[in-house]
């Protein structure tokens, strides 16, 4: 089990974040600021927010413009990476 996990770790592109994901921490940082922190949010929540920003269902000043640059699949990958502790 453990060696299988290690193999998986070694084989997977350890450094790579999904496209766009590493840019998010440019704005989303510590809790308590004007820009909401993503810490502790689930992948489902983050992905749903991105979709809502993209469709305009959730109004925003900046995220509506950014979310339009990502497909559903990309948004989900970003959400999972961030929820998994990526920064």
């Amino acid at each position, binding site marked *: 089990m453990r060696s299988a996990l290690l193999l998986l770790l*070694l084989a997977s592109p*350890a450094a*790579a974040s999904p496209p766009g994901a590493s840019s998010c921490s440019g704005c989303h940082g510590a809790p308590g600021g004007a820009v909401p922190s993503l810490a502790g949010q689930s992948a489902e929540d983050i992905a749903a927010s991105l979709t809502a920003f993209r469709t305009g269902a959730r109004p925003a000043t900046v995220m509506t413009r950014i979310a339009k640059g990502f497909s559903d699949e990309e948004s989900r990958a970003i959400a999972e990476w961030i929820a998994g502790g990526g920064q």
Partner: protein
Amino acid sequence: MTTIVRRAVLAGLAAAALPRPALAQGAHGRVVVVGGGFGGATAARVLHRAGVAVTLVEPAETYWACPFSNEVIAGLRPLSAQAFGYDGLRASGVIVARTKAAAIDGAAGRVRLADGSTLDYDRLILSPGIALRFDALPGYDAAAAERMPHAWKAGAQTDLLARQLAAMPDNGTVVLSVPANPYRCPPGPYERASLIAYFLKTRKPRAKLIVLDAKDTFSKQKLFEQAWKALYPGILDYVPLASGGQVTAVDPGAMTVATDFETYKADVACIIPPQRAAPIAAAAGVADRSGWCPIDPVTFESRLVPRIHVVGDAAIAGAMPKSAFAANAQAKVCAEAVIDLLAGRVPEPPKLINTCYSLVAPGYGISVAGVYRPDKGVLADVEGAGGTSPVDSPDTVRRQEAAYAEDWYRTITHAVFG
């Protein structure tokens, strides 16, 4: 692999010997990062966190951040709010060599430092920022900048311009000159114009500001022009290229700024000259005839010298503007690509984001955002995404974007410098 001569960084050796986290597996090799600004400090952090042996080369002990420096010029915040050091990076284990990169031998993979020592690398990341072109505008050189500050590198120049504004006569004239593209921070000159106008309106209402621009169109133009009309009528006079806005010469002795049409007498003159990548880029052979550095949009590897990567203002990043946000985003993508390359993996095509805020008055912010991806060898806009704040936004949105701007600055400087 050749051995590293580390006279300059001996103090860091102990830290380098600490065990690395699991991510270090597969990533072998030595990386040198030149320049401890928004791009370089970010790259060093990401590489170190992944367990790569990285040395950050930066001569200054204090980094003076440009974002929000226009607020300092307008007397809205202290210069000390722009100062950051490298103790945070050191504390997290990054080796900081406090010296300048003097020469780079791309074929040998070696950086010669100003103190005479050398660092060998498998991959080099350059984020050296800009040089002001003191050869590009007749009359404007380093000495002239002491009388007519550019304040386009923050620190002493920021302070000088702020003091000149505070000391000028009540009915004085400020002249601000803006260069043609490309230059650091496309909306920066217009934010500066706005905040100087705010300063005049509130502190010296009989004074005026003339903005001389070598362009006819600029970033967030509609938003700036709308705000100027509403907030600064009779104070801010904008002269575009088509109306003779291009500055052709300056005379710091007479304090005059000349265009082909007119010569303006200034009490305070802020001259933002044309720019290029910092000298180390040309010395490394990674700058082309434009003065900037062509790169591969997936890895940020130089098109001219293999194993050297360039991020931030020095790079030709296609549709991405020269901003701190962009430098930070590029550094992360580049560092990940370097980790992949060292481990023999092929980096995936990235996407990058940029967001730039400008304040036109306290509590009145506007923004531009973009999403970018490699396309036909350059970084291109993802169509349908990005753009500026709506022109018809209510005051609440302007206030919100001003708050976002403050928060962005706090977040990014903390993430980069600790």
